[in-house]
């Protein structure tokens, strides 16, 4: 087990270097000169441009820039954004907000999704199953921005239940609606995934054996069925956490949440290399760690899976 974890951690290094290099190259190949763009429509002053290029190290060959960036990164220096603020500061502003939002959404989809999935899986073919099936279908087929606008329009405008946008990005109560919108799609997936595996596993041999042994229902469902049914669900949840962190651009935009998605979006628009690479690097790390945790969870859920 320990050796497995160590190996996985070591594998992260090439993945990490590869992704950062790729992103670095991509950002710098975006059309448009970010420094000239700082001047808007005014003619860029050549002397000032030269100074700024030098200041941000843009006058060096791309690979040298990357090397400088990487060595800085290893010392915990994420570089400086074109706005003059350290990228680390930008991230310190944005990540706490997004982590709250993402965990909130994640919590909703885990608790509600698995509960609904179990319920419908056990009551297969009954009315409640049909109802949830239709509802999840609706949610899956509606794009997230439509859902967001609808929630904002009805809850914020028509009924005045919430303020149309989030006034304080750190306030959990205000993040509730954005979190529901953000988590809705995954919630539907989790429900359907759980339902299918539960329904399938109900017919498995070991379930019949457990019943024949005379195990109480709680143990049969709670331990035997749940554990085995959750493996695919957890795979999905693991990757989904990363997606929730970085993919909240639309939701953050609608509700004016000052999180990672927006910071990233703006940085891409202004070709701000250090910020884009910094944020994506952290997101890559989140993905890597999440998938490692998922793999380790497999072993906990299914003792047949062993890591040596």
């Amino acid at each position, binding site marked *: 087990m320990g050796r497995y974890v160590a190996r996985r951690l070591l594998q992260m290094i090439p993945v990490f270097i590869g992704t950062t290099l790729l992103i670095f190259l991509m950002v710098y190949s975006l*059309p*448009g*000169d970010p420094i*000239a*763009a*700082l*001047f*808007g*429509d*005014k*003619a860029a*002053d*050549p*002397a*000032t441009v*030269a*100074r*700024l290029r030098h*200041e941000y190290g843009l006058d060096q060959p791309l690979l040298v820039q990357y090397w400088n960036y990487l060595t800085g990164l290893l010392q915990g220096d994420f570089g400086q954004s*074109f*706005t*003059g*603020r350290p990228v680390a*500061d*930008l991230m310190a*502003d*944005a990540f706490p907000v997004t982590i709250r939002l993402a965990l909130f959404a994640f919590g909703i989809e885990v608790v509600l999704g698995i509960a609904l999935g179990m319920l419908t899986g056990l009551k297969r073919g009954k009315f409640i199953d049909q109802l949830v099936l239709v509802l999840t279908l609706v949610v899956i087929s509606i794009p997230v921005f439509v859902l967001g606008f609808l929630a*904002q329009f009805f809850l*914020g*405008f028509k009924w*005045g239940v919430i*303020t*149309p*946008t989030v*006034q304080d*990005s750190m306030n959990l109560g205000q993040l509730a609606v954005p979190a529901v919108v953000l988590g809705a799609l995954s919630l539907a997936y989790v429900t359907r995934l759980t339902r299918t595996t539960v329904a399938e596993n109900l017919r498995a041999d070991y379930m019949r054996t457990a019943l024949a042994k005379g195990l109480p229902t709680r143990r049969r469902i709670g331990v035997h069925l749940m554990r085995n049914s959750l493996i695919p669900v957890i795979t999905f949840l693991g990757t989904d956490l990363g997606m929730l962190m970085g993919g909240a651009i639309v939701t*953050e*935009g*609608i*509700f*004016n949440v*000052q999180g990672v998605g*927006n*910071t990233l979006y*703006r940085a891409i*628009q*202004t*070709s701000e290399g250090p910020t884009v690479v910094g944020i994506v690097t952290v997101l890559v790390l989140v993905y890597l760690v999440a998938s490692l945790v998922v793999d380790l969870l497999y072993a906990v859920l299914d003792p047949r899976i062993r890591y040596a």
Partner: protein
Amino acid sequence: MRGVKSATWVAGAIVVAMTATACGGGGGSDSKAAVDPSGTYTYYNTEPQHPLVPTNTNEVGGHYLLANLFRGLVDYDGNGKLRLQNAESIESKDNQHFTVKLKDGWKFHNGEPVTAASYVDAWNWGANAKNAQLNSSWFEAIKGYEDVHPEKGDPKTDKMSGLKVVNDHEFTIELSRPVSTFKQRLFYDAFYPLPKAFFKDPKKFGENPIGNGPYQQDGNWEHKVRFKVKKYAGYKGVDKPKNGGIDFKFYNTDDSAYNDLVSGKLDIMYKVPNSATSKFQTDLGDRAVNEPYGGITTIAFPMYDKEWGKPEKAKVRQGLSMAIDRDTIVKTVLKDAYDAADGWVPTVVEGYKKDACGEYCKFDPKKAKKLIKEGGGVPGNKMTITFNNDGGHRDWAEAVCNDIQQNTGVKCAAEPKPTFQQVRNEITSKKMSSGFRMAWVQDFPNIANFFGEQYRTGAGANDMGFSDKKMDELMDKADKAKTVGESNELYAQAQKRLTEQMPSIPLFFDHTLGGYSDKVQNVKFDTFRQAIWTDVEVKK
């Protein structure tokens, strides 16, 4: 300067109030509610892209904050007239040598008196190439600029020879050439004074600016969330705030801000999103504002192109211009969010002349066809209008193309490019081969700014590569003129030259589309499309 989507660049600032036009937004409702002089209100803004240093701020997010934290030598009053603020007098006999006297008793927010050195040191610092300030070119006319800001290499000195401190209340400016509108430019952010604290630690200053304006910073800058300012009791300017302070709220999208405005969570917004232009007047009633400001939209042509550069193509462009039914487009497609242009200078800008463009901006399909024929036709009998798709220009571009195609038989297609940056890149590297959107928003409300930056040979925003010797001469003469009136007259002649060559087709004058909540009153917008912040009254 052109309107941008995510980052709007500004040079412009404060208060050139609307000549109270018929469309007038203004907050003057009849029943004035009781006013709370220390009440604060929220204002739509975007997160500044740079630390708040005047010489390095050239986009609106930061500019709107600085415009409230600082007051320069001059600014524009409610009637669009230049007025003295910190300056007691600015005198010049030849528009090349200026003597500036300062008013007594002005202090920075930290109590430090504002002296002649506060200005001279700030300008020298801003012009210095070592400090790489984005606004450094604003000092370009001052004598000795090339010593502190050489094209290449390190500056020889850190002081411009054209600036001399006489005493605490007086300094002199010498320009390297006469500039008749120099005084008009002094309102701009780059010319603000700076306290000693700035030079000690510019970085810290950028987070906690200390100005001399009507408002001072209130609490820390909450990045991406808000920046609050409160009334500065020691403010000596003529425009003392009628409210207690402003809470600038930063939004990611115009749409979310607009929703806040309608539901009363945001008090003033100067830019209604495209999605709401057709409904905001219903949503807000008499709190909606729709009035012209100092911006223009044109279709420009690449004069560096082999075909379009031919002299006879002027006739073709005139013809194309006459094929566009501006009035109908404004009414139907643009929902009165623009005015049909009748020249190259917006109505609210000094130097505007009615029908400056003459018959060439009037709809006349018959004459249009004739002119195009005389000019040898449009190259290949087809054209495109290139625009950035992230700025909401599609509607008018398609409508204009439709008109051209229907009325002249020239094939015309609106050609969107994904982002503003991409379009700019293609334009500045002179890769255009047909029409493209060109827009300008005033740096200062005078015709000189509209022509000098766009139509002078080699000028910074001359995207067309347009060059006309006679026009350059007229503009040079205008800049040397003794009075602004004389200069305006010469610029009017330059506009005539423009009509004859038509390197760009004027389309629309832009409007401020804004609104405010029922918590505030006396909300007036200026030609820079900003509310007059100090005049806003908060109801009790």
